[in-house]
Every structure is written in C-alpha cells, then in structure tokens.
C-alpha cells in the first residue's frame, strides 16, 4: 500500500515540474501580450511619511531678531534653553536655536534668567512638564 502511494506522489511531482517548464517556455515565446495580472512597478504606496521636527516642517530658520519664537524654547522658571529630548527638534535646528538664543541674550533682546512676562501665554510647542526623564528646568 505504502509503495503504491509513494509512486503516485512521485508521479504528481514530475507532472507539476513538467507543467512549470512548459509555462516558462510559453511566456518566453509570447512576449507581445503582457499579462494583465502581473504586478506593476511603482513606488511603495503604503510608505509612511518621514517624521520631521516642527521647524523643518514649517521651513522656519531661527533668527536672533525673532526673540518671541526663541522664547518658546526657553524655560519660564529658570530662563534656560530646553534640550533636544524635550523640544523634539532635530540636531541641526536645535543647535541653530541654541546659537540664536545666546546671540539674542547677549544683545539684550532676551533675558538670561527668566522669560519675558508677555510671552508666558504663548502656545506651547512641546510639553516640558511631563519629561521623559527628570530635568532641572
């Protein structure tokens, strides 16, 4: 009984391979008719959008003259600049913001140890109160 089953299994295998060979020969010969069911080459339509930091997304260049924007990255309690893990900016923009804030502070546009009273109610770009790890700001 077992031998009979084994022979039939083998025979089926041979038939399937023979059919595959035939199908390949057939496609090579008939190139004029493209298969409508074949996959179309295109960009991945389910690609996720690249995450961008808020300044890169809106194409904003931080400037020392725009001290209101820079004050949004300053702590209202200590006047210190929030680091990258709190602001959520990319490395380049964070460096630019820090440089411009120091410029503005040096030029007496922005204070060092506190935040301007009039800017305290500005919209928050990030949440410094719920930190990933404890901070001294």
């Amino acid at each position, binding site marked *: 009984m077992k031998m009979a089953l084994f022979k039939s299994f083998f025979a089926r295998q041979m038939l399937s391979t023979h059919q595959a060979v035939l199908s390949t020969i057939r496609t090579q010969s008939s190139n004029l008719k493209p298969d409508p069911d074949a996959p179309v080459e295109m960009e991945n339509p389910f690609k996720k959008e*690249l*995450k*961008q*930091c808020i300044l*890169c*997304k809106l*194409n904003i*260049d931080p400037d*020392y*003259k725009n001290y209101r924007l820079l004050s949004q990255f300053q702590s209202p309690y200590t006047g210190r600049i929030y680091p990258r893990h709190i602001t*959520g*900016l*990319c*490395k*380049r*923009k964070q460096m630019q913001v820090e440089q411009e804030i120091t*410029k503005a502070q*040096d*030029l*007496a*546009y*922005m*204070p*060092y140890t506190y935040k*301007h009273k009039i800017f305290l109610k500005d919209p928050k770009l990030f949440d410094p109160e719920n930190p990933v790890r404890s901070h001294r700001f």
Partner: protein
Amino acid sequence: MPTYELALLLRNMPKPELKTSLKRISHAIFDCGGIIRNIENLGFRPMPYKSTAHGMTHKEANYFIFKIDTPTKAVIDLKEEYKRDVDIVRQRFFKIKEEERKACTLEEELLPPAYREDVQKMIQIGKTQVNRFTYKFKYNSGLDYYPFQK
C-alpha cells in the same frame, strides 16, 4: 564685500542727538568703504537686564539694526571706533550666511541605538581600539594553579 548685520544699542537720548549719532555711525561705515543697505529701528525698549557702558548704567535703550556691506578688514576698525563711542551701549557684527536647506534628520535620530549610524560608527571605532579595561590572567606566568575563583 560680504554682507554684515550690525546690531546696535544706543543710549537713551533726545531725538536730535539720536539723529546725529546715527549720522556719525553711518559716516564711519562710508569712510571705510562700505555701503548701507538697510536701517531698522526696533524702537526704544526697556532692556531685560541693566548693563554698564562708558561709566553709565543703562536700563532702556534704542535698538537699531544696520544691514551693511563692508570690506572684511574694515570690520575690526569699525568695532574699535564704536567701542570708543559714548552713545553706543552695545554693538555686535554678524556675518549673513545663506542657509543651505538640508533634510530633517529627526527620523534617524529617533531610531533605537543599534540602528543609528553614529552609534554604529562608534562601535566600529571601539573595535579598533586596544582594550585596556579587562584584565586577562596569563597562564604562563609561573603559577601552577589558577589563583582566582572560577
């Protein structure tokens, strides 16, 4: 001639005096072969902190921004001249650079450390370094037993 931004703070003084001091500043720029593109007046504002200049403390000042083109060698001379000027509380020169637009790298920075390029580079550099931190006992140093607890 490269473009510079000259940010000035002028002390609290009446308008005719302010006018003469601005004229003096502009003439200094023209004398060293420069041009003025733009003068912006940001107004008479209280300063966030008081500062002393030429023996006087200032709590408010007139904020001005000059956009100028001067030869590079003249910048130091201008700085020195304005340092001696009594009416100028603070002056800073900034070179205007055209920022090149580069893609945001936030996505790469938020990856776990094993997938970040800079961390991978550090690991590769570490492999080339000589390891001076782990001590390995030499078996051929004369002792006929292993002295430590295995």
